């Protein structure tokens, strides 16, 4: 299986493109482009309606996080990590905190572990809702985006009342979480989950049982299953190809070992399968949240004792901590050198491989109309690519 991959990458089967022939047209999608989920661009070479080459261009959102982290103390890194990935920031907080806790040898209180899991699942729902709206919107089915954004807003309200912020929650501190759940949270959360379920039923009817949507997505943008490992594809993109890749199962973290769920798997590996896997995974997350709320401890500390954060030093070491975010494997590679500052932090976002190498591989041969949708269907978030 993998032996073929070498050949695949080594020899480019496509003929060279002669732009001066007049047969081709250069087309830029983005960065100012509504079909792109964030601020990035794809340089397309089209021949008629068919795209013969697509090059991704990133860096429009580059803030130099990995550099900035190196000149901040361990606690000061905490507020900036969430900014790495705007639509689903909590995985940054979790992975960073977990890596630091591992290197510094800090135990996290039980209650904090449950709350962290809760937050991550809430974030996953948000991210999927945003994806569903985007995927439908990419085909001009705007109404889905209206509904999903509305229920996402409800979820943001839950985030807000729990963490004190809508988007950048900054709640998962190294050592635990900032606070417990507010009064009445369970009730409002149950209501929100019901509303999301109702909306998801509508979404299923309008989007997934939709002749035109099926026509646009079935058999389009297929990721061959043997590319999954070669291209480092993880998360729903891999699961839609029939592989049960799910970090929550493969490397259980937080309280996932105690929760009942099965990875959602699709088979066709086309855009429809990917959308459907995400829709069903969202329902799994709803179920997980219900399990968490039913079983989490309601009292006890939420933070373990940290050394004085103003001059917190961590011994030399390196580690890699991963989590299953809505797009796949999210990981932090942290190297410390014994000082009060991280030596190096490398953020491994799934979008990095999905939106660049994989997208460039998938684009040739597609129709221009499908490029934006294809990009959306890989569910990539540009801010985490360039950091």
């Amino acid at each position, binding site marked *: 299986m993998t032996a073929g991959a070498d050949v695949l990458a080594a020899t480019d089967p496509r003929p060279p493109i002669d732009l001066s022939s007049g047969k081709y047209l250069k087309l830029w999608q983005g960065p100012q482009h509504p079909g792109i989920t964030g601020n990035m661009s794809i340089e397309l070479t089209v021949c008629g309606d068919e795209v013969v080459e697509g090059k991704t261009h990133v860096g429009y959102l580059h803030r130099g996080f990995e550099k900035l982290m190196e000149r*901040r*103390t361990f*606690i*000061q*890194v*905490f*507020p*900036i990590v969430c*900014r790495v990935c705007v639509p689903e920031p909590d995985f940054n907080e979790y992975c960073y905190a977990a890596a630091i806790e591992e290197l510094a040898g800090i135990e996290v209180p039980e209650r904090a572990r449950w709350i962290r899991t809760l937050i991550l699942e809430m974030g996953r729902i948000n991210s999927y809702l945003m994806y569903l709206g985007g995927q439908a919107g990419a085909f001009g089915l705007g*109404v889905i985006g209206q509904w999903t954004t*509305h229920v996402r807003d409800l979820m943001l*309200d839950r985030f*807000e*009342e*729990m*963490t*004190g*912020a809508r988007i*950048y929650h*900054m709640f998962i501190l190294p050592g635990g979480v*900032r*606070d*417990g759940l*507010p009064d009445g949270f369970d009730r409002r959360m149950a209501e929100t989950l019901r509303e999301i379920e109702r909306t998801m039923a*509508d979404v299923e*009817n*309008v*989007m997934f*049982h*939709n*002749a035109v949507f*099926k026509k646009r997505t079935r058999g389009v943008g297929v990721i061959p299953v043997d590319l999954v490992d070669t291209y480092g594809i993880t998360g729903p993109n891999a699961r839609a190809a029939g592989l049960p890749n799910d970090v929550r199962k493969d490397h259980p973290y937080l309280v996932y070992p105690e929760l009942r769920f099965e990875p959602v798997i699709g088979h066709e590996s086309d855009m429809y399968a990917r959308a459907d896997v995400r829709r069903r995974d969202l329902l799994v997350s709803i179920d997980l949240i219900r399990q968490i709320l039913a079983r989490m401890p309601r009292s006890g*500390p*939420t*933070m373990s*004792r*940290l*050394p*004085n*954060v*103003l*001059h917190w030093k961590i011994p030399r070491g390196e580690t890699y901590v991963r989590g299953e975010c809505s797009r796949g494997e999210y990981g932090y590679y942290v190297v410390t050198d014994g000082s009060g500052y991280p030596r190096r932090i490398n953020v491994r976002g799934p979008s990095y491989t999905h939106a660049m190498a994989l997208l460039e591989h998938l684009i040739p041969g597609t129709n221009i109309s499908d490029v934006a949708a294809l990009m959306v269907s890989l569910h990539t978030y540009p801010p985490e690519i360039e950091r």
Partner: protein
Amino acid sequence: MRDVLSPFLAWKNLFREPVSIADPLNREAAPRYRGFHKNDVSKCIGCGTCETICQNGAIDMVPVAGFEPKDGDSGLRPRIDYGRCCWCALCVDVCTTGSLTMSNAYKWIDADPDAFRFVPGVDAKSWDEAEDGYRRADGHHLTIRERVPMQELAPEVRVGGFDEIVAGYDVALAKLEADRCVSCGLCIAACPTHMSIPQYIEAVRDGDYRRGVRLLYETNPFSNTCGRVCTHVCETACALRNEGDPIAIRWLKRHIMDQVSQDEVREIIGAPAPATGRKIAIVGAGPAGLTAAFDLAKAGHAVTVFEAAEKPGGMLRYGIPEYRLPYDMLDRDIDAITSLGVEIRSDCRVGRDVAMAELHEGHDAVVLAIGLHVGRSLRMPGSEHPQVRKAVDLLRSIGEGMSFDVPRTAVVIGGGNVAMDIARSLARLQKLTHGEVKVTVTTRKEPGHIVADPEEVRECGEEGVVIAYARGPQRLVIEEDGRLTGLLTWRIVPKIDDKGRSATICDEGDAVVHPADMVVEATGQAADVGLLGEALTEELAWNRDRLAVDADGRTSLPWLWAVGDCINGPDVVHAVADGHRTAAAIERAFAETSIERTRPDARR
């Protein structure tokens, strides 16, 4: 077919009310929302920890009108730049007083980009009164509030002797305690001698004890001593005191000295400056005199210290019991000073063995550092009785190793640290000679208002000393055979007088006789100024019974300086500060006269 029809279900929303918020412009954020900052400026102490933790560089500490620096308050307040802030609320989490919070207000719109900067609590904002907003959760503190406990002898063990009670931190514990410091530096101003406290605490964290000793000796040659018995006003100014225990600054200082050998200490102090040819006489080898001696000797002057007692150290040796300050620790401090070439003439009482006039003749300057060695008496009926003793005298006898009949029961009058010292010393002696402790301390104060350090009071109780609060001593109970049997006290009742001032009256109805074979008065001390001689006493200006001095410690005579307890009352670290101040003043005076000397015709 379903795939064609089912999408039309979307239209059912046509008959549902839209979910839009009717008035989004006035929607309130969640109660925990991290909105704009609030600061209770009267609670804020301007420690700047918020500034330190802010990773955005969004916080500046700025002086604010109406807030002057004072002990435990820098007078600065945080100013926040919303062109930088990221609303992470780490500043709120780390705030040492809990004064900094966040409202849930979130609307700030302005066409002027320079407007987004304000001092919360000072620049009035619409959200100053907001009730909701981000607060720290219960128990969520980024600062560590509990002090690392010090290993100490159990009460039953320590009362059986004069061994030092506290063991001192080991390196690991000291690091933990030093780790708590937020390095705000408020303590520096509070410390009479302005030690570089955050810096030497940092040295502990780094394990760089040589750096620590260097920093200590910049401001305090009595670090072994102060590390044990300092009144640590710095700890009352410590930012962490507001929401927990202050840093154990005193113990950390001691810890530094414990880690470095005496030879190394001498090496770190280094050699004095080249000799200047100036000579200085210092009367009294207590902390004030020796500190001045240290500074002056370091500057290259020839210093001679005249000490009446057998050994140098003054009150440190003869006033403080050994279980608090072991003599060899004091000796180490003194050794460091003499290593600079300071000559100490012990057993040489000025006025008896040498006259003030001689000192004046033979030296460029004379410094009086005679301390307070005379105990004051309440002069109540019966206080002439031989078994009524003064605390200073008794402590001195203990220090000198002289024996006296240890009373089976004793009463100590007074509520200060000296009372505690003598009570606890007596307790130890009782335990050693009689096997049981029967000491009562009577104080006029209510519990909690006592002058002595709380830990002294606590340890006193642990050692079996009884403290009788709110008792006003009236007279001594003397049997007809002349035997002292007790002390009669009346209950002190607090009262507000007609003019609204608080006063006290004695309740005769509540009289108690505290049985005692010996009554010790620990009710204040005075200086023994007899050594000055009549002529000099006449010549000098006085301020009641104390010598009048200027801010530098100079008396009305230009060659005579007076420092330490005899001027400023009893306190070690103040004495050290005095010593430094006066030494510096003498330096300045020398510098001025040296200019005069370059002009031979200027004089006479």
